């Protein structure tokens, strides 16, 4: 579990220790390791980055340099429900900015990159996500949501609020079932959300690097 100083669990550290064996050189393990760290903590704390550097025996500054380069690594806390909304041209031409305004209003997020006061939501404006034929679209809980309308945004946000205390990460389609990875608004979910987000551990198998024997 998440400790007070934002450090990684022993379990996560053990997984990180096993990563370098998969690559010809140890540095290739840095991003998968940061991925594991972010999945556990929600964002990359300075303590976690230092731990990754220690475990992989790499300079801490180097690890931070990698973390700051890539958009998908968060160096600040994000909401429990984090939306990546595409506003690049194909989506913008089909109303992405109106969708953004609506999403910000519905989630109570004041601006991109900030977390709502209840800690539940954050919204990030991102570049093209490569699903242009379904514009406007967004990425949320490791799935793409297509053909967005204000009504669809409302449904997503309401479902997120209902999910409450134990939001299991919505996993992408299990191996070899659905040919198209589209997850609609979750209909299950428990009522009565708490006001404050508890520490989370949202780790799904699908977000991890593939373990191989090669």
């Amino acid at each position, binding site marked *: 579990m998440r400790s007070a100083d934002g450090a990684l669990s022993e379990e996560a550290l053990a997984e990180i220790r096993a990563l370098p064996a998969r690559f010809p050189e140890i540095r290739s393990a840095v991003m998968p390791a940061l991925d594991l760290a972010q999945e556990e903590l929600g964002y990359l704390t300075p303590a976690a980055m230092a731990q990754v550097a220690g475990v992989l025996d790499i300079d801490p500054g180097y690890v931070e340099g990698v973390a700051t380069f890539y*958009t998908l690594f968060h160096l600040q806390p994000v909401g429990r429900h984090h939306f990546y909304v595409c506003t690049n041209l194909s989506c913008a031409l089909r109303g992405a900015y109106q969708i*953004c305004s609506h999403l910000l209003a519905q989630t109570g997020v004041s601006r991109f990159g900030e977390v709502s006061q209840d800690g539940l939501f954050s919204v990030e404006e991102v570049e093209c996500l490569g699903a242009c034929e379904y514009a406007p679209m967004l990425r949320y809980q490791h799935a793409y949501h297509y053909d967005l309308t204000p009504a669809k945004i409302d449904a997503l946000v309401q479902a997120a609020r209902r999910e409450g205390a134990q939001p299991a990460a919505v996993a992408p389609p299990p191996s*070899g079932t659905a040919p198209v990875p589209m997850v609609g608004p979750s209909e299950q979910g428990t009522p009565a959300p708490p006001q404050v987000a508890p520490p989370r551990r949202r780790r799904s198998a699908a977000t991890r690097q593939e373990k191989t024997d090669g």
Partner: protein
Amino acid sequence: MVELRGSHAQAREHLLTGLFGTYGLHTLDVYRRHGGYETLARALRELEPEQIQAEVKASGLRGRGGAGFPTGTKWSFIPKDIPGPRYVVVNFDEAEPGTSKDRYLVENSPHLLLEGIGIACRAIGSHQAWIYIRGEYDGPYGMLRAAIAELRGAGILGDRPFDSDFALDIQLYRGHGAYICGEETALLESLEGKRAQPRSRPPFPAVKGAWGRPTLINNVETLATLPWIVRHGGEAYAQFGTEKSKGTRMLSVSGNVQKPGVYEVELGTSFRTVIMELAGGPPEGREVKVFWPGGSSAPVLTGSMLDTSTDLDELARIGSMGGSGGVIVMDDSHCIVKAAARLLQFYAHESCGKCTPCRVGSNWAVRTFDRIQAGRGSAVDMQILDRIQASLQGGRCLCGLGDSAGWVIDSTVKHFRAEYEAHCLSRVCPTGECEFARVEAPAVA
């Protein structure tokens, strides 16, 4: 399940997409029932690497990632005499704005890509392939992971695939959100666990690529074309297309069209057919104002140029390019300055910061566009934009990102100078779109 938007049934020109839409095609079982992996088996058991290379050369296939470089020629750069490991690296970092064809391909038929990778491995004598997939592609990642697991279970990945002595393995590596990783040397840096900044060349990846080893980097669609070429022969593939642009390619059509989707067309098909027929044209009562023929980096063409061919050389001749096959269509209700401003934000955000013209120029352009859109533009801003675009182009940058940013400014000003002048000199937006308040001006890195 979500509606399939694009080519997905048998047709003469559907060399890649003919089986798409078949129930269960993403599973090994169904893929094999339709002849899948027969070509890889033949490549491993009966064909010599030189024979595969010869077929690909004869096919005239050109890379589908953006540059359109002849695939057979690229393969021939891989040295034959260097001992030790060599790699096939798959560029699945599809991030060019307006481009979704590789996602569409893998979501429909992950095994088509994997079979193509196997054939490429055989052709250059590599036993290990890496698929660099952009981190946001959760769905395709899950499907490839499942498909690779199926192949391991069936022994098609392993020490003796199809009872040959050619060991084969494919690994997945996730990117973490950086457009620059589509540039092949930046992709290699990222695969090696570094900040993704392009390398200076030479040495080229063919000689010194991933982890210092000879490396072949190809786009997803390019590799997925190999099973067809090796099965039917390079000559048969060359029957499709034009004299210099052989075969078919997948175009993702997006923006202001009635039927956005990923359409496989024979090269040489006109954009009028692609945009007005396949994609249904602009909304009722609207005209095509402008379109990007090959991703946001391809210089724009106007609605009067719809009869332009998708032939790569024809596009180059008129000053644009086939690029990544992402066709973005904008109708006459939208403002060209606003569109260009949004794209410059993209290039500024994605500039890796390694070389000065791109890092400084793209951000300077964003500030200039901000001023123009805020109604504070002037004749000087037109000059500034012109100077920036000239400084970004012509090989002044380490990779194509800087040139692309320059082309956006250059081509939109060239075709729509009057609209720019209205913004800068008269401070009005002819479409009225720039009056709309933005949600927020995003901070530029």
